């Protein structure tokens, strides 16, 4: 079996992996919360999320909190599955190195 099988290209970037891990344990999170937690700029976070959205791993909800625009993100079923598979691949890789 190929040692690198099961790795997800979408999670090669550590920030995307972090975004996904946070969304897997939380139902939904606001843009600003993610920004503060990951210590990213607006543009940086937006582009990483866009990439995950393209893979259909993350879904976006846009609405209003009073007059303030509010953007929330959550992990899709496909995203959670992909994250699990990616973790299993990492585990597998580390075990084989021992």
């Amino acid at each position, binding site marked *: 079996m190929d040692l*690198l099988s099961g790795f997800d290209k979408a999670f*090669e970037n*550590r920030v995307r992996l972090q975004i996904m891990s946070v969304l897997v*344990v939380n139902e939904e999170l606001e843009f600003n919360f993610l920004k503060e937690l990951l210590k990213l700029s607006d543009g940086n976070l937006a582009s990483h999320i866009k990439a995950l959205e393209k893979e259909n791993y993350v879904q976006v909800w846009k609405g209003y909190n009073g007059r303030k625009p509010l953007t929330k993100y959550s992990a899709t079923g496909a995203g959670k599955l992909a994250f699990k598979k990616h973790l299993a691949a990492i585990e597998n890789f580390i075990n084989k190195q021992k």
Partner: protein
Amino acid sequence: MGNTTDFQKDLASIRDMMEKSSRFVSLSGLSGIFAGLFALAGTVYAYFLIYYPNSPFGFRFVYVNQSSVLLKLLLAAALVLIASVLSGFYFSRRKAIASGLPVWSAITRRFLFSILVPLVSGAVFIGLMLLKGNLEIVAPACLLFYGLALMNAGNFTYSEIRVLGALEIGLGLISAWIPGYGLIFWGAGFGLLHIAYGALMYSRYESKH
């Protein structure tokens, strides 16, 4: 791509993010120590009010159901509560800022909600019992409801807080079994246990930083 150390860094960052995004990790051991000290001060004040110069295990000079005494005790308890909550906010804020985490976030709200539901129910219940003159229930009920609140909060902050919750519940039940020593149990539960827990948490998570 990737070697083992890279993946280990990946895993560490995943764990860190999951933890920070789902648990309120800004709770400081110092708030525990201060809450304990305030509670001990309150206990000593109450002792002088109702037992002095006898031992707190012995005979009382005044009845707690005299309304002037009861009022003073309630006032002292309220002061202890306010001082503890304020120091809790202060040290949590300080710790959050020091570790670069948002002070007021969805996690903070979830943590507060989990602790406030049992606590407010308990406070209302105890208030009603006081109005009915049912005084001996106050100390055990304070400890019980507080212990339940901490058990509940264990889902959203350091899980060690559950041990503190279990001990408070245990003390509450013992104090219900042996009425008349409410002040001793109250001082042990809110004073000594808080200080011990706060010191443990501080040495475990904060003293190295």
